[in-house]
């Protein structure tokens, strides 16, 4: 990660700048004391994690469904989110059953689980990838690929930062 090779507009550099800014902000708000209670450290951890996710999603600029979903998740308070997702999930289940029925003919598809062992894993993948409930398999795989790429970048950068500052 040296200055010459770094492309200023790459995902990695965008994420790095944002994340560092967020970290400085967090540290400025509550400087870490030598003896902080676990609760404080936990809160701090949550803030840092949210900052990391947000900065990653921002760097992707809402071009992707998962980034939009992450930003939305981190912005709206949980009660409003719960109501919205409830409506969304029920309508989605309906659409999913109709499409599968049309393709599979007489196969009856239940709302909660798709036919075959693939369905269970699909549900898991949908849960993992933010915003994954709203997509069919094709787009879901696309999103997953991009999400994996961004996560690896995020992990790389955070690891560098952590190693760097743990030496001090």
């Amino acid at each position, binding site marked *: 990660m040296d200055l010459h090779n770094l492309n200023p507009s790459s995902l990695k550099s965008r994420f790095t700048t944002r994340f560092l800014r967020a970290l400085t902000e967090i540290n400025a708000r509550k400087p870490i004391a030598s003896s902080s209670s676990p*609760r404080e450290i936990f809160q701090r951890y949550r803030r840092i994690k949210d900052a990391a996710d947000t900065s990653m999603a921002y760097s992707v600029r809402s071009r992707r469904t998962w980034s939009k979903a992450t930003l939305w998740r981190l912005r709206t308070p949980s009660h409003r989110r719960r109501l919205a997702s409830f409506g969304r999930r029920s309508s989605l289940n309906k659409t999913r059953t109709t499409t599968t029925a049309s393709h599979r003919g007489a196969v009856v598809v239940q709302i909660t689980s798709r036919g075959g062992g693939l369905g269970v894993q*699909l549900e898991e993948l949908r849960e993992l990838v933010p915003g994954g409930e709203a997509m069919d398999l094709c787009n879901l795989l696309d999103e997953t690929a991009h999400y994996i790429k961004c*996560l690896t970048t995020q992990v790389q950068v955070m690891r560098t930062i952590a190693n760097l500052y743990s030496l001090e």
Partner: protein
Amino acid sequence: MNRALPEMLQSSDMTVLERQRARLKWQAEQFQQQNYFSELSGVFSSQTGHVQGFQQGCLMSRGGARGDSVLSDMAMTRQLKHEPGLETAWQGLGKVDMEFAPCGYGSGPSFDMNHAISRTSSCPPAVAAAAAVGSKAVKGNSLKMGSTVGRVSFKKRKVEKSQNTEVVAEDESKRIKASEEERESKITGSSTHRNSTDKKENSGDTSKLDYIHVRARRGQATDSHSLAERVRREKISERMKYLQDLVPGCNKITGKAGMLDEIINYVQSLQRQVEFLSMKLATVNPSLDFNIENLYVKEVLPSCTTNFPPVGMAPEMENHSPYLQFNPIQQVVSGCGMEMGTNSCDMALRRTISAPVSIPEASFLDTSCFTDMQQIQPSAAWDVELQNLYNVEFPGSIEASGLKMEMEMEMHQAKQDCFQLNGVVSTKDVNLLIVESHPFHLHGYNFFVVGTGIRNFKQAKGPAKYNLVDPPKRNMDGIPTGGWTAIRFRADNPGVWFKHCHLEVHTGWGLKNICGREWRRTQSIHFASNVSCFLYSVAPYTAKGIHGFL
């Protein structure tokens, strides 16, 4: 009739030329060599009663009216969009020809022709006339004439724009061969919504076009639903292949289910790594500002090696730094606060980590254990192994929310200078918040299982129930779901020993730690064997080699 054809050809010549020029500008990048074209005309000139010739003759008789980009039209109907007047005509012709190209040899030419003509209801009269002309020239001779006419006009056009046709010619030759190989056994009736895929070339283009072209193979259903389904399946498999490249270590896995499993595991591990790293950052006390220039100045790998000297590791450790480098970099597969190797030395150095660090419950599912040194003697700080990393709290506990995992090492020393050697170790492995029990395995020792239980280990009640009379002796034991197991053994086998969850993937995720004895002095064999376990299991997602070392 036969006269009508060349006249029609003549009349349509100009427009065809113009059209072709426009089209070829659009296709400018796909030039082929001349030999394809000559091959094509050679093929056309073989006017035997062979069906191949027939097919091409048909195509040419059609194509005579349209030039050489017959089959390319089939594939790229989009190019006709800018020629709206003839669009329907081309499409109609395209459909006709599509039906010709894969037609079986079983039915005679006339049958096919009639079929084709009966379908081209949407064709404009000029085309229908050509078709009618073609149909009247059913016998081989007239076809030949038609084809020769086509060839003549074809060659005329060849003179005019030689290079442009190569593309199409190549398409055509390929497709003619392809159609030879896969002949449809039946011609279905749904012509209007006919999809035909060129499986070779245009899979990349199909995304751009409005029409998705699918070629039906022998014996496959050709109604629109199954074709659409096939297209969808191909897209999905394409994406799965891409994901296979992205996720490390799944080259050998075939099948969607296995791949999905791998993908899910990988995404989970990445998310846990993020959480672990943010936890680490939360505890880090930055002496400098978070400044991006500092990042640029320092580099990752050397920073890990510089970690060792300040930590005061014995010189032997330097030799193993290539191995140990793995740990700080790669270890965080689990994201659960399990650290091993050097990082724990790092941690031990910062002995101020008495303040427990809490890790939230949601993310941390499986961590079997970590150690908590109760009696750390300063001299033995390095001898005593890699322990004591984080104290994590149970959810709902008073202090903080989060997981609590704790493993106590009670070291009873036999002798002062051999701190670990021949000491009795009693450890308790805790398995919390997990949906399954974990079999954990300790290299190098057989231990006695003195107690087990569910839920939290309570210091007061737990040890009281220990079975110290005749405990079972093993080197692998299962920790019950949401519970704990207490083991004891005599640490008489010097070295660094691997202790891990025996489920392969969990090892890769970090459900492991090391109990080392005499870290400094006995790094040789055991360490190497353990470290090679490390190398396999710590590097993310290559946790398959672990069994070789057990």
